[in-house]
């Protein structure tokens, strides 16, 4: 590892970290917007103090949704809304 490459690498790493931070911030803003808009559309009164908890839980649900969505199923798969064991 040359001495010159250290600052360049560090700079790149800093840039990546900054981009990630900015992307996370944008996502978080988008989620906060979704929470506010959904609450209004659903006519659920959302007090400011509840925002963080709701956002956390929605984020968790979306992570679970992403895991389920990543599973490829044939188009013909029937849902099981009337469930039978």
């Amino acid at each position, binding site marked *: 590892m040359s001495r010159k490459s250290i600052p360049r690498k560090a700079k790149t790493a800093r840039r990546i970290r900054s981009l990630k931070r900015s992307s996370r911030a944008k996502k978080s803003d988008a989620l906060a917007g979704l*929470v506010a808009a959904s609450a209004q559309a659903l006519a659920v009164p959302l007090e400011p103090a509840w925002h963080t908890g709701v956002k956390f839980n929605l984020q968790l649900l979306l992570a679970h949704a992403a895991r389920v969505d990543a599973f490829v199923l044939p188009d013909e798969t029937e849902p099981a809304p009337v469930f039978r064991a």
Partner: protein
Amino acid sequence: MPGLDLGWSNAADIVAAFASGRASALSIVEATFARIRGRDPLLNSFTAVTDERALIRAQALDAARSGGEPLPPLAAVPFAVKNLFDVAGLPTLAGSKINRDAPPANRDATLVARLQAAGAVLVGALNMGEYAYDFTGENLHDGPARNPHDLARMAGGSSSGSGAAVGGGLVPLALGSDTNGSIRVPSSLCGVFGLKPTYGRLSRAGVFPFATSLDHVGPLARSARDLALTYDAMQGYDPADPVCADRASEPVAALLQRGAEGLRIAVAGGYFKSRNAEAVYAVDRVAAALGVNRDIEIPEAERARSAAYIITATEGASLHLDRLRTRARDFDPAVRDRLIAGAMLPASPVVKAQKFRRWYRAEMLKLFSEVDAILAPATPCTAPLIGQKTFKLGDAELPVRANLGLYTQPISFIGVPVVAVPIPMSPLPIAVQIIAAPWREDVALRIAHTLEVEGIAAAMRPKGV
């Protein structure tokens, strides 16, 4: 009552004592209320006692015995129910503040009526997590039900009072509900036996719902035989529950003596291989006692848990949306925030979760052509402290509230029957799930009974009870 240690007698012993004349129903019921008065201020498992109706019922049973009438199978056995079961004359709280304003139920839930018809005597309603959306047993409105082995610890939820009352020696039998693990988690944390039957086996009529496509009801007890006796008394079609299967009762109590001989059993691998020492010990001990030497992979179990999580959140949100609009401040904030988030999830992931559920069910059914039962941990740890927010699992620090059902959710997701068997350990017990094919409660209960006879599984008597 000679020969009857009511604090730790099982239902079968109580029936025998009553039938032989060693104890009257009235003396059994009065002694039960004395125990509740003495110990429940510590356990906080009851939210109401039904003393008037219980005493009338006990006197009727004594009169029937004196008159030489044939005695029903659970004659004089005290029981209590999670407070989401309708009990005539009581508001059905479902662990909430909001439902306190509801008028009292005008009739008993089907299962309460069936147990009463079988001779059992209802003594009260039990604490639970708000609207059953809970694994901890903490309740903002009624206070937490406490673990009988360590009062500073969780009883587990959401059937927290059911686990604490049975494990704490107040009643030999209780009913609970299980949407994602709410019978099996308190069974594990309190060290009692619990049965979550096949989805659609037992009637939910008169039971306050949560996520209806996942809601089950079932018993908790201190022996596998008591689970079987109670389950047999509650089986049968009930048109009042649209999900209740139209199939004949299949009694299991008489089958227990067949044991586990000849049954093909495997340990769940992969996702279910716990990194918690107590859970590993419990599963290994059960597997060794049963001579099990093979693992089986339940495919996509983690994804199944995610799908169950989504369906629960959205069905629960749909159920409570009006209450969230009008009385959001009256919810426990932890429950409220989860329900509001559930209302905000788009429909697409929910449909995908339901499609995945059909795929997963087919895969699980394939496994049951290879084995008769599968063993898995019931909880990822023993009882956490009340108020504890996270626990360690291997290297990961996980939130308690969402993750106590880590191993139960992928199983109830497709409605197969499970018996949670408690494995005694010091200082705290933990349970193992015995998972069977749909409608084969008999297989799971036979294995549970075998483990009990061999001294591997047992409800551990707390100190001082």
